[in-house]
């Protein structure tokens, strides 16, 4: 359907709607640059008297957000890379190899992505604690995330690799190329857009995770930023100026990814919705 162009009445209404929609964001941004004194005077919804980043500095130092931020990166980046690698291998098998279990495997991957996390909580906790020695390590969280995200990611990759014509792959096979060479030198370069789309989604999901670090990490110094924000809330109960600064910091990386890679992000999300 073609979008239509609109008049000024529409734009006034649209702007009001937008402001209402993002008012929670605006409110957090405003509060994050105010002092506690100003908030105590009841000046919650006015412009700040003077612009100060003091709350952000405090969140990073007193609130230990520098540690949490780094932990989130240490957990998120390797997870995304590992999922991209393994899911593209799986996707290649599911899309291009004559493998007897392809269909069943795809259903298993697809079904897994909709599981309620609770059915996995106790066993994953137990395995990490008793057998894998990964309890209370960032590696433990990474391993779980990689495993769980493989479901969606493999299906995603398979759907993309299926659009690569069989002809060029057959031709390479006839020339005696190994499957590994076909995958790494032909398929991967063609998949760049799909890899980018998947990477933006995975980054956001892993960065935003709260539950699994809650279950698998106990030491405060190893926790990611979502858990850190929750700690901040617990320790400074009425310090809304600090909390909002913390919330803004935790939101910045996914927002940046979204701002700069919006096209990839949306293409990834809408795969299947617009067919």
């Amino acid at each position: 359907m073609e979008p239509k162009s609109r008049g000024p009445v529409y734009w006034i209404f649209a702007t009001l709607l937008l402001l209402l929609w993002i008012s929670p964001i605006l409110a957090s941004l405003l509060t994050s640059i105010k002092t506690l004194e100003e908030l105590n005077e009841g000046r919650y919804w006015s412009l700040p008297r003077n612009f100060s980043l003091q709350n952000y500095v405090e969140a990073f130092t007193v609130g230990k957000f520098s540690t949490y931020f780094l932990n989130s990166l240490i957990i998120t980046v390797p997870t995304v890379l590992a999922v991209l690698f393994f899911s593209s291998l799986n996707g290649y098998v599911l899309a291009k190899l004559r493998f007897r279990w392809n269909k069943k495997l795809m259903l298993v991957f697809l079904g897994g992505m909709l599981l309620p996390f609770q059915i996995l909580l106790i066993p994953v906790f137990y395995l990490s604690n008793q057998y894998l020695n990964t309890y209370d390590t960032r590696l433990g969280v990474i391993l779980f995330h990689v495993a769980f995200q493989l479901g969606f990611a493999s299906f995603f990759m398979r759907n993309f690799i299926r659009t690569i014509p069989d002809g060029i792959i057959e031709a390479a096979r006839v020339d005696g190329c190994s499957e590994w060479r076909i995958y790494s030198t032909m398929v991967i370069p063609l998949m760049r857009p799909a890899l980018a789309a998947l990477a933006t989604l995975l980054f956001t999901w892993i960065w935003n995770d709260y539950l699994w670090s809650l279950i698998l990490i106990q030491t405060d110094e190893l926790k990611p930023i979502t858990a850190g924000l929750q700690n901040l809330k617990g320790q400074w109960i009425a310090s809304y100026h600090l909390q909002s600064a913390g919330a803004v910091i935790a939101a910045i990386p996914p927002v940046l990814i979204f701002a700069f890679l919006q096209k990839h992000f949306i293409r990834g999300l809408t795969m299947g919705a617009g067919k």
Partner: protein
Amino acid sequence: MVGALSFMQKRDHKTAWRFLAPSLLLYGLYVIFPIFFSMYLSVTQWDGVSTQVLPLCFGSDTSCFQNFIDLWQDEVFWMSLKNNIAWLLFFSLSAPLGLALALFFHVKAKAASFYKSLLFMPMVFSLVVVGTIWSWFLQPEFGLVEYILKALGILGAGENFTMMASERWATAGLIAAASWPHAAYCMVLYLAGLSNLQKNVIEAAEIEGVSKWQMLWFIILPMLRPATVIVVIVTMIGALRAFDLISIMTAGGPANSSNVLALYMYQQTFENFRYGYGAAISVVLFAISLLLILLYLKQTLKDETGRS
């Protein structure tokens, strides 16, 4: 050729196993095995420490399904289940809200894409961030909602907006907060659907002079069906997975009135150390989700065969 594999197929099989091996190992260990392990634990009374765990009915006259019998008599379980149903019903309102936003902002103008980017924004926030923001958005005394209600004269000077402390309304506040990012997500899915609609059908309908509502109901909505299927599934799964936001905003309170199965399972397991009981709750949650999962798989298979 039944049973025998051609040379090419054998080669493909070998490669397939080699490519899949690391993933299958991880996936089996962290996703498949845990499902069955949880089912097993649900018929035990494991304390989380003992190394030997036998089903409840082994060597005693307790029923193997004692955890489930206890659940049946557990008021908090029913309260949580009821709240999950409320989530299923009211969280679904993000779908029409997302559709309305998509229709409203499906506009030709440079500014529109900027507006849309800002509207999508809540979608990429962690639910911890959403919970933090909304917690004091809905606070009594200085939250924005109270501020607006007072400015409009709906709330008197001495009164406070106490939604989140109310047993009756806390879940509504939680669902509202959760719908904020989720409606943005639905909007994205519907916008993608809208941009793929067939132009000629809509033009033909316009020439026929159908009303706006007829156009929406009889022409646009049926064409948006693929988007709706995905929206409905992610919404229902989201309602069953609700955990982060509740744990952050109300911790299930006041008096368990906003608890849900996912959070109750966590509390029983990791706060009260009743692993068997927690596992039983997770099995109930799994059983409900299984219906959705099977529906989704069926739909996907249908789409697959329809396309190839």
